[in-house]
C-alpha cells in the first residue's frame, strides 16, 4: 500500500519536474498526474472495500494512511475542481496535500462496521472525481462543475449515513491519536504551505464533528433542493466569493469567513437589498445537502438560539450579528455546508448561506 502511495506521488513528481523544466504543458502535466491518481485511487479503494477491513482493526499508521489515500483521491477531485472554477487552480501537486483533508473526514465517517457499503459509494465518487479532473484538463468546464457537485454529494451523503448511525467516534479517536499520519512523507517544496495547515485544521474539525454527531449534540443537516435567487451588479460574476466579500461583515459570516447568500424568492432579495439600482437578478437550481436549518424551531431549540437572536434588526450591526456570526463559524467548523436562515428583512423569507460555491450549477 505504501509503495503504491509513493508510486503515485513519484509519478506525479516526475510530471511536475518535466513541467517545471518546460518539457510539457500544464495540461499535459495535469493529465499525467491525474492518470497516476486514477490508477492508484481506484486500486486503493477497491483494496479497501475488499481486504481493508482487516486493516481497520490494526489502528496503526497503516489504517490512517489507507484512509488518507483513498479519501484523498475523491477530495482532490473536487478541491481541484472548485479551484479551477474559481480560477485558482495552482497545479495538481497541491491537491495531494489537500486530499488529506477529505480523507480524514471520510476516515472518521468510514469507521466501524458500516465501512463496506460506504466504500462502495466512495469508490464511485473516486471514479467520478477522476473524471472531473480529466474533464478539467480538457477544459470541459460545465461537466466539471456538474461532476464536482456529484462527487461532493456522494462522499458527503455516504458519510452522513454513518454519522446518523452514531458510528463515527471510535475512528475519530483513532485519527486523533494519529495526527502524524496527516503527513505524506515525501513532500516537495512546491506543495503549498496552506494545505499543510488546512489538513490539520480539518482533522480537528472532523474529530469535533464526529464527536458532536455521536453525542447527539449537533442537529442533523438537511438537504435543500429548489430554485434560489441572488442579485449582482450587471456584469458581475454572481458566484464569486471575492476577497471583498470575505472582508465584510454579514449576518452569518464575520470578516474572515465569507460565503454566498441566496434567497428563496426574488421579493426576498429585493427586501434584503433595499435598492436594486444597477442590479441583475440571477436564479440557480440548487441541491445542497447538510445545511443547518435555523428556520426549524426544533433545531433552534437544540442549539439554544432564539428566533429573535437571528433576526435582530434594531441595534448596531455588532449587536445584530452577536449570535449569528458565531453561529456561522460554528456551523462551518462542524461540517455543515451552509445555513438555512430566516430573513431579517422580509417576514417569512428564507435565506440560504453556502460556505462555498461548489453546489451551484
Amino acid at each position, binding site marked *: 500500500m505504501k509503495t503504491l502511495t509513493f508510486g503515485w506521488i513519484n509519478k506525479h513528481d516526475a510530471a511536475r519536474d518535466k513541467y517545471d523544466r518546460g518539457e510539457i504543458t500544464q495540461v499535459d502535466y495535469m493529465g499525467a498526474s491525474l492518470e497516476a491518481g486514477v490508477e492508484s485511487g481506484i486500486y486503493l479503494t477497491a483494496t479497501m472495500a475488499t481486504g481493508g477491513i482487516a486493516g481497520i482493526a490494526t489502528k496503526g499508521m497503516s489504517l490512517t494512511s489507507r484512509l488518507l489515500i483513498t479519501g484523498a483521491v475523491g477530495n482532490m477531485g473536487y478541491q481541484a475542481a472548485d479551484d479551477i472554477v474559481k480560477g485558482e487552480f495552482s497545479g495538481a501537486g497541491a491537491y495531494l496535500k489537500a486530499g488529506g483533508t477529505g480523507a480524514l473526514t471520510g476516515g472518521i465517517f468510514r469507521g466501524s462496521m458500516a465501512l463496506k457499503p460506504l466504500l462502495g459509494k466512495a469508490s464511485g465518487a473516486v471514479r467520478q472525481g477522476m473524471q472531473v479532473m480529466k474533464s478539467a484538463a480538457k477544459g470541459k468546464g460545465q461537466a466539471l462543475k456538474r461532476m464536482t457537485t456529484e462527487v461532493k454529494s456522494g462522499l458527503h451523503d455516504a458519510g452522513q449515513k454513518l454519522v446518523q448511525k452514531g458510528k463515527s467516534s471510535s475512528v475519530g479517536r483513532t485519527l486523533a491519536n494519529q495526527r502524524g499520519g496527516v503527513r505524506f512523507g515525501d513532500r516537495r517544496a512546491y506543495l503549498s504551505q496552506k494545505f499543510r495547515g488546512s489538513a490539520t485544521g480539518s482533522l480537528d474539525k472532523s474529530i469535533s464533528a464526529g464527536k458532536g454527531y455521536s453525542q447527539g449534540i449537533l442537529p442533523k443537516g438537511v438537504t435543500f433542493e429548489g430554485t434560489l435567487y441572488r442579485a449582482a451588479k450587471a456584469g458581475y460574476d454572481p458566484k464569486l466569493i471575492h476577497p471583498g466579500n470575505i472582508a465584510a461583515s454579514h449576518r452569518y459570516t464575520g470578516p474572515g469567513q465569507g460565503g454566498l447568500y441566496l434567497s428563496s424568492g426574488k421579493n426576498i432579495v429585493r427586501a*434584503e437589498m433595499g435598492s436594486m439600482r444597477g442590479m441583475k437578478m440571477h436564479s440557480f437550481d440548487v441541491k445542497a445537502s447538510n445545511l443547518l436549518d435555523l428556520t426549524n424551531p426544533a433545531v433552534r431549540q437544540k442549539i439554544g438560539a432564539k428566533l429573535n437572536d437571528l433576526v435582530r434588526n434594531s441595534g448596531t450591526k455588532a449587536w445584530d450579528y452577536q449570535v449569528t456570526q*458565531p453561529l456561522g463559524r460554528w456551523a462551518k*467548523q462542524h461540517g455543515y455546508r451552509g445555513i438555512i436562515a430566516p*430573513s431579517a428583512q422580509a417576514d417569512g423569507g428564507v435565506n440560504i448561506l453556502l460556505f462555498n460555491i461548489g453546489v451551484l450549477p
Partner: protein
Amino acid sequence: MKKNDRKIEGYIVWIECQHCNEKFPAFTFSGDIDQVTEGLGALSCMTDPEIIISELTASEWNSMPPEVGIKKFVQRVSNLLDRDDLILPVIASYEHSETDDANFQEFLKKYKPSMPVYKCIKCGRESGRVIRTISPSDFKAEGGAIQLVGKLSLKT
C-alpha cells in the same frame, strides 16, 4: 440620502502597524447578505484620516487574481479625484481563535471574532493590527472625513 442611492453600512477600524507604529483607518462594509456589500471598495488616505468609498466596475470586480482589479480600482478613483495619496488597505491574513465545542452555547461563550491582519500602508509589512473600531459618525466627530464617489449614501 437620495432614494435611488445605494445604501452603505459599515464601520471604521483603526489599524496600527506593530513594526513602524503607523496608524491608519480602514472601512469595513456591513450588511445582512453579501450582495449588499458586493462591489464596494474603500480607499484610505495615506496622510490624513480620510476614507473614500466607491464601487468597482464589473471588470475590476471579476478580475483574477482579485488584486489586479483592486489595483485598477485604486488607479481609476485616484485619477477621478486627481489624488495620489489613496491606497486600499490590504488584509494580509486573518487570525482565528477557534474553539471546537460541539455545544453551540459553549462555543458562543468562548467565541472571538476573526481579526484581520493588514499590510501596513507605510512600511508594507504584514503587521497592522486592529486597535479600535468606531462608527462612521464617531470617525467624523473625531475629525475624520468620508467621501462617497458615485450614487452612494452612508448610513451613519
